[in-house]
């Protein structure tokens, strides 16, 4: 199978169906590009070069244009990530309520800093702008669930409770 054929066959029928449904919301296909990447990322964790090409082909965008969007948005992952993504709010309300202590605990506990993934592939830690949870500061989001306010020990227990 040529590389071109391989790339064309990468997306599942389910993914293509979901992408097409999203594309139908817009008068141009490029408007659905980010949505398409998110559909694929949700299933596969991150967007490899081959997946980017596959999505670009399906959506009908130049790969470079789609990659410009993909690399602009901080929540489209173009590199491998862990099984769980820990977003630590680093904006002002969380900062003044002790977000640095959570960040330090993560570094100590997981041995990784911002932008890094644990050696066992379980967690990726990323700083994130204001999560819109300033009344629950300091807050973190693990995968798609918001948690806060958190002490360091509560964060520890939360990490323990995540499935492997």
């Amino acid at each position, binding site marked *: 199978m040529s590389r071109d054929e391989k790339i064309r066959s990468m997306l599942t029928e389910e993914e293509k169906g979901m992408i097409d449904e999203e594309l139908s919301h817009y008068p141009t296909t490029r408007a659905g590009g980010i949505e398409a990447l998110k559909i694929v990322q949700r299933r596969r964790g991150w967007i490899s070069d081959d997946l980017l090409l596959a999505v670009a082909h399906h959506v009908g965008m130049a790969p470079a244009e789609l990659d410009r969007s993909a690399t602009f948005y*901080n929540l489209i992952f173009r590199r491998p990530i862990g099984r769980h993504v820990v977003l630590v709010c680093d904006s002002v309300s969380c900062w003044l309520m002790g977000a640095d202590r959570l960040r330090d605990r993560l570094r100590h506990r997981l041995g990784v800093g911002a932008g890094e993934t644990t050696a066992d592939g379980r967690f990726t830690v990323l700083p994130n702008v204001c999560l*819109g949870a300033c009344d629950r*500061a300091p807050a973190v989001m693990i995968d798609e669930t918001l948690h806060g306010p958190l002490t360091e020990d509560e964060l520890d227990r939360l990490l323990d409770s995540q499935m492997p």
Partner: protein
Amino acid sequence: MNDDRPLTGQIRRHGPPPTLSEYEDCGGYAPVRTMLSHMTPEDVQQEVMNSNLRGRGGAGFPTGQKWSFVPMGADAPRPKYLVVNADEMEPGSFKDRLLLEGHPHRLIEGIIIAAYAIQAECAYVFVRWAYHPSVIALGRAIREARETGLLGHNLLGSGFSLTVHVHTSAGRYICGEETALLNALEGHPVIPRSKPPYPQVCGLWGKPTIVQNVETVCNLPHILAHGAKWFRNLGKGKDAGTKLYAVSGRVKQPGVWELPIGTSMREILEHHAGGMQEGYAFRAMQPGGGSTGFLTEDHLDLAMDFDSLSSVGSRLGTGTAIVLDDRTCPVGFVRNLEHFFAQESCGWCTPCRDGLPWVERLLADIDNGNGRPQDVEILERHVTLLGPGRTYCAHAPGAMEPLKSALRYFRSDFDRHIHDQRCPWKSQGTEA
């Protein structure tokens, strides 16, 4: 309906949002039914104009006036679009989340009203990625509304049709800027557009478009239900309606409350947020999110409305206040803010792209004990060079508002950092 809290009176703080039938039992969608059978789009525009509703996203532009720029009539370009800005990402802001999660049907009813007023046939709700529960709640409510004939083709037999889509973003603060948001929706590089032309005339895909904040739209159902005069009387001062106010920081009860617009900061801080936590004293606050200028103790009795806060060099912004306490370093506070703005600059225009990182670096130097005497003057110069009129959009000018006011109110703290070559709030020997 809870008359003094029309936006939030039906929200259950710890329960699911009202379903369509629960909402209808409380009078929900009655305004839309009346509107579709008895009002022309011009009637709706006039009522909203009379209500003196001003945009709740930060700029405070009168909503009725915004709508009046949209071409109407048979010759108007088609389709027209309504875009709801639910990309709440300004540091310190968490008010729209309450409305999105707590009462999506009210938002949908507001969307129908706004779309009808400008005769838009398609609406997008642009929601930030992090608001997963909001997206789920909205999706469910849209389905319910569609099944009842409140959305879709020929609403309730009125001849007016409206489709609503939810668009979830993937991060980046600049997407909340009105014209950058339009580029984001179209799948183009997310940078602000040059104005004019304004979106009302040439917006999404070059068609007439209104971009409106969530809270603004949620006000429309009760304006139609009770009338413009009733709405105007909800406010305490010159402005009309209620406002979602919020407080975060070292207060006893951080949170968000719906209060008459024009309530004083003191009342919000002391009565609703419960005052400062034990062991912390109030030093200053940003009244309306990370891009608004600091205000101090002297300003606490001011009304939290558009004109009162502008008159002292700040802004109502989103109405979500962040409190600076006496045990937090103001230089560190501003450094955190400018890190955010520098990181989130889209890079399109030079003052913002190059100026903000420079500002952040100077503040980091000062905070870390490496500040030079001339640094404050360089910061002052940036306040001018990145100010209004120098950039494509309000991102850099917004970033300069807290810096400008910090240099004014906390000047001695900046000087002390530079003179002592250390941050007085950090214990000896520790570094940020």
